């Protein structure tokens, strides 16, 4: 599996805004067993100084995974998604995601390499509000397994 190294440094156009809903935060928190009241009860979140429900730390992946389709479905990059496994994942937060946020993702390809027959792709997604306020930066490294 060979990925085109000329894609390094490429930045994609910002995605359409994702509206963070209270029920999605509650659903996600419930799915991971996160019972802290700040994920479920608006008053509890406000008591911590937030305007609305606080999303768990990995919640932004809902938004960034959808946004990354821009890259993995880019025919010019030529990725076989059925051979993809998740390598690394990292989040650097300016603040937690909260209900009511309208989030926009800007994807940049930070690194492309091929080693041992496998392709490696590192992307950085800057997640901001529609107003341009930074919320979280998300790095993801995926591995495209070579044909055995």
């Amino acid at each position, binding site marked *: 599996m060979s990925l085109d190294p000329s894609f390094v440094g490429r930045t994609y156009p910002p995605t359409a805004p994702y509206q963070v809903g209270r029920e999605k935060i509650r659903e996600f928190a419930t799915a991971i067993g996160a019972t802290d009241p700040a994920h479920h009860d608006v008053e509890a979140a406000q008591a911590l100084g937030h305007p609305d429900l606080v999303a768990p*730390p*990995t919640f932004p992946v809902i938004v960034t995974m959808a946004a990354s389709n821009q890259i993995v479905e880019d025919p010019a990059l030529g990725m076989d998604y059925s051979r993809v496994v998740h*390598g*690394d994942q990292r989040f650097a937060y300016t603040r937690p995601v909260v209900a009511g946020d309208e989030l926009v993702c800007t994807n940049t390809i930070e690194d492309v390499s091929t080693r041992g027959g496998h392709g490696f792709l590192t992307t950085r997604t800057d997640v901001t509000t529609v107003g341009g306020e930074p919320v979280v930066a998300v*790095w993801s490294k995926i591995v495209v397994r070579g044909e055995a």
Partner: protein
Amino acid sequence: MELPAKTFRVTRADLIRYAGASGDFNPIHWSDRFATKVGLPGVIAHGMFTMALVGRAITEWAGSPDAVVEYGVRFTRPVVVPDDDQGTEIEVSARVREVTEDGLTRLDVTATCLGEKVLSQARATIRTTR
């Protein structure tokens, strides 16, 4: 300093619920037929589900759901989840690597399943003063 270990049980029902909540419907997380066809031993947990459970441990250690400043992992081994009532277990422990003067605590985290590490380079930075 070692933090108290936490254990999370993971069943097939948890994977289905996480698939719906996260929007990740990759069939390797719900179909044995598909998982084995692509060379896996069976259905495996979403890496991001494991990362979410470890994230829960981190926020619980921090004592606050909004304390995480930075959090990253490398997925090194799949978490195989059998189709039975017991499922499997992920054990999470952590060690405080550094406490900075500006109120940040850096953790080195270990996550294992059946005694094998499923993450490497799992690190988190949490804010310990408000």
